[in-house]
């Protein structure tokens, strides 16, 4: 079909070329979005894929005899005497218990007793010992314990360890895996949900199956408290000054430029600051949530100030005029009228700042939070003061686990990331809901 030369319907080569360029350009845009979304999807699936199994754990059901002759030589349940029995003593009880349980179930094996005992986690004797010390009355009875299986056995049931890889592995063997399989069929071994992952403290290099996030979550919680208590009032106070009271001069200009720069300073620099000022100069405790909280406070402050100032700015001047007009002082106008109206925005900004602080790792490495800590830190102790006891934090625990040799720790690290992301998700949802609920259009 042909049209007169000035018709709108005529399509010439040039138009065709230009339209092709338009289509290409759009395709670039779509490609960019697809790449970004795909990256997110791959990231999340890779983390979820390797981390979800951290919330499940393999346990052996073992009947253990707790003979008085071995566990309490005093016979009067004297704690001092009972404590003398070390985990090594308990380990042999567990080994015998497992062998007996296997015999009862009619399972036989060619493996040596020592190798069979390796099915049980090295952490298990300590668990049993603690249970016995806490409940001395169980001595002399036979108790059924759910004991952690060794990391490789656990990995076998989660697909991380195979018979082939076990053949090359000094810590386990194909026979051990086969035996575990038999135990599972006999109902003596089970992989099930494991909330201990969120509660238990970290465990040493050889025992990924026992490692948990308890201390790290507690430490992160303490730090968030410190950040909230310090950063929110300081941030709000300084925003109020800058936005409502400060004269516009060189000095306030300097503060403003300074704040926007602080927001862009690499986080590791704050770590150096914390190390030099808080630890070396002020001699606060290394690894303590107090120092961590202080460092994160300084880091979060610019974020909170920037968002608080934005929400103060969004309160229309007519509100201030109205208050001043009935004879309120400027201070009263701000505190009685402007601040309450800006509060939802300030809270949203604060939560987002906290979420940022919760995920921050680098500065915490420098102030010693990477240390191996198994004791739950107390919020206050006479020796260490407020939040002064050594602790670790969620993101640092993740880093810590990535540095361990045992592949079981990759699962733990990914599981910890899921936990961290869940916390962040909840915080962001709260922020979004706050914003939705209180959003005001002037």
């Amino acid at each position, binding site marked *: 079909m042909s049209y007169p030369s000035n018709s709108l319907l005529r399509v010439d080569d040039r138009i065709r070329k*230009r339209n092709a*360029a*338009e289509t*290409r*350009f*759009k395709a*670039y*845009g*779509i*490609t*960019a*979005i697809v790449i*970004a*979304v795909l*990256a*997110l999807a*791959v*990231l999340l699936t890779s*983390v979820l894929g390797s981390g979800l199994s951290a919330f499940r754990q393999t346990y052996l059901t073992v009947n253990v005899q707790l003979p008085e002759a071995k566990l309490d030589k005093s016979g009067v349940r004297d704690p001092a005497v009972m404590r003398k029995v070390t985990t090594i003593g308990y380990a042999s009880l567990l080994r015998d218990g497992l062998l007996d349980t296997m015999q009862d179930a009619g399972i036989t094996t060619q493996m040596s007793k020592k190798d069979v005992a390796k099915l049980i986690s090295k952490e298990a004797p300590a668990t049993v010992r603690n249970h016995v010390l806490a409940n001395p009355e169980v001595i002399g009875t036979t108790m059924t314990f759910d004991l952690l299986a060794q990391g490789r056995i656990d990995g076998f049931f989660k697909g991380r360890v195979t018979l082939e890889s076990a053949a090359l592995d000094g810590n386990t063997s194909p026979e051990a895996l086969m035996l575990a399989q038999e135990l599972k069929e006999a109902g003596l071994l089970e992989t099930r949900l494991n909330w201990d992952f969120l509660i238990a403290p970290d465990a040493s290099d050889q025992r990924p199956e026992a490692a948990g996030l308890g201390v790290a979550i507690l430490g992160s919680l303490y730090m968030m408290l410190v950040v909230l208590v310090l950063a929110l009032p300081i941030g709000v*106070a*300084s925003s109020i*000054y800058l936005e409502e009271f400060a004269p516009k001069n060189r000095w306030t200009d300097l503060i403003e430029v*300074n*704040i*926007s*720069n*602080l927001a*862009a*300073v*690499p*986080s*590791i*620099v*704050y*770590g*150096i*600051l914390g190390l*030099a*000022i808080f630890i*070396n100069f*002020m001699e606060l405790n290394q690894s303590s949530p107090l120092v961590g909280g202080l460092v994160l406070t*300084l880091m979060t*402050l*610019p974020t909170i100030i920037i968002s608080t100032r934005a929400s103060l700015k969004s309160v229309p001047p007519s509100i201030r005029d109205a208050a001043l007009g009935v004879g309120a*002082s400027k201070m009263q106008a701000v505190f009685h009228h402007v601040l309450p109206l800006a509060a939802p925005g300030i809270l949203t900004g604060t939560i987002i700042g906290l979420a940022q602080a*919760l*995920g*921050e*790792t*680098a500065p915490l490495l*420098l102030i*010693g939070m990477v240390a191996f800590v198994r004791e739950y830190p107390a919020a206050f102790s006479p020796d260490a003061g407020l939040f002064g006891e050594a602790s670790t934090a969620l993101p640092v625990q*993740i*880093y810590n686990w*990535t540095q361990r040799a045992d592949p079981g720790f*990759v699962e733990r690290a990914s599981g910890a*990331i899921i936990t*961290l*992301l869940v916390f*962040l998700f909840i915080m962001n949802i709260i922020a979004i809901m706050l914003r939705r609920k209180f959003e005001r259009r002037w």
Partner: protein
Amino acid sequence: MSLSLSVLLAIALSATAFLMAPRRALNLVSGDRRQLASLPKQFGLSAGLTVFLPAMLIALVGGLGGFSTTILPYIVIAVAVVALVVSVWQSRPDFIARNRAESLITLVLIAASGVAILTTVGIVMSMLFETTNFFQDYNWKDFFFSTEWSPNFRGDSALGILPLLWGTLYISFIALLFAVPIGLFAAIYLSEYAGPRLRSFAKPAIEILAGIPTIVYGLFALVTVGPFLRDYFATPMGFGQSASSVLTAGLVMGVMLIPFVSSLSDDIFNAVPQTLRDGSLGLGATNSETIRQVVVPAALPGIVGAVLLAASRAIGETMIVVLGAGAAARLSLNPFEAMTTVTVKIVSQLTGDTDFASPETLVAFALGLTLFVITLGLNVFALYIVRKYREQYE
């Protein structure tokens, strides 16, 4: 008496002042509050702050300044008691307590905004101090111009920053090469083309990327991207055997920077007036011609600013490179090889058992200062450009 106990006492004293001052003022006018120059509450506030602030100031300055811990608590208490007496005595009906209270509150607000300044001063001082110590032990020329980095504990370490800078810049370059086009195109598509449905899905998805902590990206590099690149690219193509590499860290960092670039440039595109777009479309330009020839050139300064900010982010990023780039200081062009960065070395020199007298530890402060100066320069410059750009269209 410990300092914290004296601080608690001072707080108790200021609470007392807060309660006593209004009562005394009211007693003097036999309970007729209309005869007071200010609200009773203001009397309390004024007196409470008069007691609280000087005591806290002394405790804080004395405590930080290392003042004798045996005397300091008593000074704090003494000051609080004197202030209590004075402030309650001052609380007569004609005292305009509101003015006093408000000037004291203003002081608190000013002090709070000083924290930001103090932070910067603290950053600079802490690093400057240790850096001078470092340069007393180690020649600054060797630090800045040597191409060798091999710390050891025999005392003959080579601590040249160049290989670290090279790794930093190489990784940042790859990250920007990945993030800038993708971020820009994503921002362009979302703001100029996408319908509300796509926007309501893609925008939050990209924002989620921004909310993910860097340690997560680090693990992603270590566990997924590194081995993938090694098994499917580096090894078959004969470029090396290392999972941690410049490319691994660069790509993952690029993913991290996508939302940063796209949200910044989104703001910048939105600042370009609609009238310019209308002008171009009204002449019969297609959307893409309008974007490429009118919107992008108009937004160019802003985009440059955004890219510089992203570069500063990339240079200062730590966890991704710690887990993804490797620890070997190397001057090489092969992107599949492990290299290391300034931030990685700050972490490795300052964690573990550190001896604050040895140059191997102190070098971390010199590295930190260098990093700070570079990023500060980039930030100041970028923020300046972006600010000028915004003013142009306001």
